[in-house]
């Protein structure tokens, strides 16, 4: 039988969080916590698809930076990438997967729970 008062481990944010200590690093999705990756996922959440150049202009980042972060999201299967040609110009297009959308929803829940917890604490 578990000791009373023992910290219960959960994978998701539980409603009765208290104080800043309630935010455990393990609970936070580090993959989309990073700014550029959070931007990519947020932008794709309101568009069916965005091209590499559209994302680059939107997030005001460099080719290399965007490419590295997009690849990480792709490896985690949060986004998909399709390459094609528009005439002779190569076109890279990204889309958010169902898993990526769920990850963003979890992240939003986490941030909201954190704000609630710190207000109560």
């Amino acid at each position, binding site marked *: 039988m578990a000791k009373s008062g023992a910290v219960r481990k959960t994978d998701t944010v539980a409603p009765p969080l208290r104080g*800043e200590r309630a*935010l455990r690093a393990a609970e936070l999705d580090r993959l989309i*916590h990073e*700014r550029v990756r*959070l*931007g990519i996922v*947020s*932008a*794709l*959440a*309101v*568009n069916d698809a*965005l091209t590499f150049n559209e994302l680059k202009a*939107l*997030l005001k980042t460099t080719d290399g930076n965007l490419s590295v972060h997009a690849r990480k999201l792709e490896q985690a299967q949060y986004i998909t990438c399709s390459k094609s040609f528009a005439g002779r110009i190569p076109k890279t297009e990204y889309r958010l997967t169902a898993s990526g959308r769920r990850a*963003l929803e979890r992240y*939003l829940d986490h*941030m*909201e729970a*954190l*704000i609630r917890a*710190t*207000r109560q604490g």
Partner: protein
Amino acid sequence: MASPRPLHDRALDNLRYIRQTMERAGSFTAVPGWGQIAVGATALAAAWVAARQPTPELWLATWLGEAIVALAIGGWTMVRKAYAVDDPILSGPGRRFWLSFLTPMAVGGLLTVVLYRAGLWHALPGTWLLLYGTGFVTGGAFSVRVVPVMGLCFMIVGAVALLGPPAWGSWCLAAGFGGLHIAFGGIIARRYGG
């Protein structure tokens, strides 16, 4: 040494960043297709009435009346569509659409006064069509892809009206404000839900 920012502040900052990114990435989808078809129909009627006016002043008054009617129809149908698709008109992409669209409209109003005073009646149709098209090209950057294409078509008709013989002016107004509104309104209504 500066103390670290509280988690509460950082969480709020992250939520703000997500909201702003979504607003910038989203597009204004409340351009009303059916409203444009109605505006096109009234513009064709205005073109018919204006062509029968005996003086340039009455011709101008007819088109200014049509502008007011079009504004009322377009505004009403846009507000209805915006509510239906839950697309805010005065914030995010909607606000940027309006700021970009209304600037050329204001210039058009000013140039109408200047050209009227100078007696350059034949330059009015081309100027109106060019600036109306410019509004849709610039505002359309924050909307669905067909909107800037429509703007470009208005600009082409406007260029024809400005560079062609003065007698073409009324035909270009009918083709632009009438024909293009009806054609693109149909496309928008069919593809983008009203």
